[in-house]
């Protein structure tokens, strides 16, 4: 799912459930499969290996001698939110994977993404061209589950509105910023950058944040999680995607992580 191609069957909730079962005690592959997809369901086919692989890719579990064990501390899967935060913190490890590259390409479309296709599945050819590797409609349908779960966008039927508010909130927590301290925006970006190359322009010289990141920052500002400011005498000026209506309509120089 993250290392290579995306599959629709490896959805976050299945990965989470699998981890919760393995949390109690190591369990054999067949027993684990029997718990989630027992034969008496008469499913005909099985998805087990897909979501187990996703869990393994995310280093949530290890498989040894056909026994599945939880590979992370229990606190990582205490809730599905903690799982999300964990995954968000390690996405950069999958920079060659299809999910990472598609997300990066999607975010780079900036506000223009709103004017295109209404169904992400139909965007496969465009994204395939952008990342120079095959992406099909099925992969895009799989992508939407995780991009929505990880807080990188909001699903509107089959369209994803880029807004990284939840993702950014996780990364801000991971980056362990001091609360109520005013950071220059450049410093803020450099501290979150190790986790955010996927959605932030890799060239900091541009000092330009795309639509999805800008939406996320504004949403956090509106929710009182952060405070964005443009202080006139500051030179570390970054450009958000322009939204004339918003209090932070374009430029920003400082950010405070509110308590």
């Amino acid at each position: 799912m993250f290392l290579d191609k995306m599959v629709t069957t490896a959805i976050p909730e299945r990965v989470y459930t699998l981890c919760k079962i393995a949390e109690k005690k190591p369990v054999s592959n067949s027993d684990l499969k029997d718990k989630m997809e027992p034969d008496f369901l008469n499913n005909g086919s099985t998805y087990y290996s897909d979501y187990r692989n996703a869990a393994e890719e995310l280093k949530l579990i290890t498989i040894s001698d056909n026994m599945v064990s939880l590979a992370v501390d229990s606190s990582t899967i205490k809730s599905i939110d903690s799982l999300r935060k964990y995954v968000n913190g390690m996405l950069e490890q999958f920079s060659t994977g299809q999910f990472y590259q598609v997300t990066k390409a999607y975010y780079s479309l900036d506000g223009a993404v709103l004017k295109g296709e209404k169904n992400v599945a139909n965007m496969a050819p465009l994204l395939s061209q952008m990342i120079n590797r095959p992406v099909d409609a099925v992969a895009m349908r799989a992508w939407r589950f995780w991009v929505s779960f990880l807080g990188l966008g909001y699903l509107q039927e089959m369209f994803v509105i880029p807004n990284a508010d939840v993702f950014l909130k996780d990364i801000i927590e991971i980056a362990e910023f001091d609360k109520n301290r005013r950071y220059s925006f450049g410093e803020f970006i450099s501290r979150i950058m190790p986790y955010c190359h996927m959605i932030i322009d890799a060239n900091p010289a541009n000092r330009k944040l795309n639509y999805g990141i800008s939406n996320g920052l504004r949403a956090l500002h509106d929710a009182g999680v952060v405070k964005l400011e443009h202080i006139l005498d500051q030179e570390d000026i970054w450009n958000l995607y322009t939204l004339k209506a918003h209090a932070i309509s374009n430029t920003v120089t400082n950010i405070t992580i509110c308590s």
Partner: protein
Amino acid sequence: MDSNIARERLSYVVKADSITASQGDFLATHVAIRRLHLLNKFDIQPSGGRDYSEEAIYKKHILNSENKHQFIAVYGQSGTGKSHLIRWFEARFQQEKPENEVVLFIRRSDNTLKGTIRQLLEKSEVQGIANRDIYERLVRASVFVDENKLKDMIYHNFIIEIEHDDESHPIRITNVKRKRLEAFLNNEVVHNYLMSATGPIARMYSKIAEHTLVDRDTVAQFIADDFMVSTDLFEDIYRAGADPKAEKMARELMADESGAEDAKKIADYLNQFVNDVIQRCAGIEPGDFRQIFQEIRKELYRIGKNLTLFIEDVTSFTGVDDALLDALIVEHTGMNADDNICRIASIVGTTSNYLQNNFRDNHKDRITQYIYIPSDVFDEDGIFEFVGKYINTMSLPESTISVWLNNHAAPSEYPVHEVKEGANWEYVTIESGKQLCLYPFSKSSIRYLYKYGLTKGHQTPRYIIRDIIEPVVNDILSNVDKFPSLKYNIVNVNTTLSYRIHSQIKDEAQADRLLRFLSIWGDGNPDQYTQDGSTYIAAVKKEIIEELGLPILSLSEIQPPKPGPGSVFASTPELAPEPAPVPSPIPLKSQERVSKANAVLTNWSNGQIIDVSATVGITGILRAAQGDMCKFLFSSINWAAEGISMDNVSKVEHATPTLICFENQTKGTGFYTMPANWESVNLISAFIRWREYGNQSWNYPDSDLDAYLITAGLSRIKNDLVKAVNVNAFSKTSYIEAAIAAEMYRMILCGEYRERSLKNLTAKYLFEAKTAKPAKSSHSREWNSLVTILSQRGADVANRETVRQYFNLPQGGGSSVIVLDEPNLMRVFRNVKTNKLVIPEEDLQSQDTVKLRRDVFSYLKDIVDRIESVAKAELANALTVVQSIYDYFNNDEIDEDDILDLVTKSKEFYTEINNAQINVAVSSSDAVKKNTKQIAKAINDISEVLDEDDPLTILMTFSGDPLSDLQPLLDFLNQIDADIDKVDKQLISRKNALGDVVENEQSCSRYADELKALMVISTSLEGRQ
């Protein structure tokens, strides 16, 4: 403005009825009308043609330099300023009239017949008039009469007129109808109904009585609506025990189609008597007026005078209008020359409708000139001047106005107040070049309130005074700290401006106030610019915002408009021609629809109700937006991640309450109610534009803001939504527990789970494919009946699907493969088993608004309500069966050995029969022998629960249908019974065939061996019985 003076003078100056203002205030607030139409023939709403100024018409017609007979009608819609114009004509004429001209102004404020007569008699020129005794009588005639008494007099006089109708009027009704109408009007309920404050009698009373407060342009007539009988009214009439004739009439008037027609006919019929009735009630006899006029005109002729009458409103003359109009049209020349009456010129004000419907054709023909006042009597500058003059006049002491008036009220001398408040605000330049401060208005606010604050047909001077000037001035005088207050509706609110204000200002009341001010007093755009050292926010100078104590916000900086603002407010479109608009890619029709929907939303945020019940029109747009919001929320929230089963989400999606509803919504409920505030308006508007502008996409200008708004808005309400749809929102028990309990009961009742305890009931049972039900069972009628109920209308299938899907972790909605949330399944499953399928009674009575969840509880309740009686019936049934077995064996502890013993003995019995060559077929005991174990277990199981009280234990015992297991034994025992019976009969028959063998001793010994054998068998059989 000078608020100290304005506070005192406001009520004197701001009068919707201009005639009641003092002469000074009247002239100080007068704004020249330049859009009058002159017509020779009546046209209710003339269009085109040349515009005339009031001055031009005055000189051409009112001044009457040719001294000719004139009968001029000034007409227009109610409130257009007819009275004002007539009063201005009169004032102008008074200054320039010839010496021999007697001018009489008949005011509407003296809106009674008595008042009209008194005005005529008060003129010094007619003091020497003949027949004074008649006039004295007329004045005496209207002594004070109690209101109710006078109204009753009017009412009953109509009945008298009907009763004595001599058919001299053109509209006639049949005798039968007349009698019915009379009875109808005599009915107490009808009487009270027609006498109500809004009824026809009140309208007529207002024309007779003094100092009533009805609309000045009310016509004292019956209308069809007065006689439309509603179902409620008919009920009241009927219940009160109406005269049959009255009831018939009421029934006729209630009819759907013919009722309206009949009502109109009755109204028209009764209107013929209005003049007579009012004259009689006012104490005036018909013909009096004509005579008075004749006398006045004769008197004036005698002393060499002419008469010019300015009649503010002829509508008020109902009751004498015919006579009056007859008098006014009589020329002094021609055939009347011998009467020696003076020349008369009349300028009569009337509404268009009254002129059209109530002037007789012969009166219309005698009108020498029509002057039409259109509704939009002022151009924009005229409206600014109109407002400015009112503000100025109320800010001036009365004495200053009087001095100006006494000095002939010359425009060049027009007094201008010293501005105490609003010096920085906008000014309007008037004719004399003087500047009037518009505070508390801006030109934008006047334009806005004129366009949106006045309803169609009310954009007239009267309503500008009543609905714009007075409320706004009152608002700022009463509480400048809250100005502009809540009462102004913002139409077409700029979403960007609204969003910026509400995101920057946390005090919602202040934010709303600022938005109102910038939207109505400013240009409503989210921009600011600096010019000549001043900052303009939404085209309002920053200092003015500060002056009102409003918060200052920061907007997007733009270039100042050209030419620069001539005032403290931005240049208005009149001052600065707008650049050619860039064609919008959005169709005009869509823009209009969105604009109208936004207007409704604005009103909603101001506390009005909102209707989303229809699928068409603006209501339909709002409904669609609500639906789109719900769809978005269903797809964007990670329900499963939030701990909400997708089965629950699906049930909520199909529920009658919508996921989202609006506060103050006329119909329907929702899981989450969006409060009527600006945040909600912004959100809803975004969805409206998504559908209307983008055709259900974000492909339209500025959609980036809308897309942001809906995502940011969702995160604000997500937690509340998740909580609202949670399974525990309505009861402590989740519906899935009820569903599992019901499924377990079903499995027990249908024999799919046949164990006597729940211990071995695993989750597997819940998901396995079900086997076909056995065709026949030995259950009680009650048991079978409950089993039938379980599958009625597919309830069992639906419940099983609920159990199956609740723990599924689906991907979107496209796969039939189930992946279980095993930890959650096991937790709930264990819980249900531990509780022995018991769900608290109060939860069974679920008031859940989600029908599909409620159905689960109902399904379980259907079972729980019956299991006790089913268990009892099953026990009773079993007891009967098992008792018969006990009786056979003469024992109530039967084990396998007892059954096998029976089998052995039965075999011996048949062997003996065979030996005795008795013709009875051998009954096989194989079935009994084969099922001995099962039969013994069934007897044992049943025996154990015969004293049991717990219905679940009983049901589980009978789940495997043990009575059916006993059937082979029962069948066998019955067969043996039958066979013994047969043997007995055959033995008797054989014995009889031997004849009397008692005397023959040898015969006794002859069958001794046989007898002995039979005795043995008999003894053995007896023991079995």
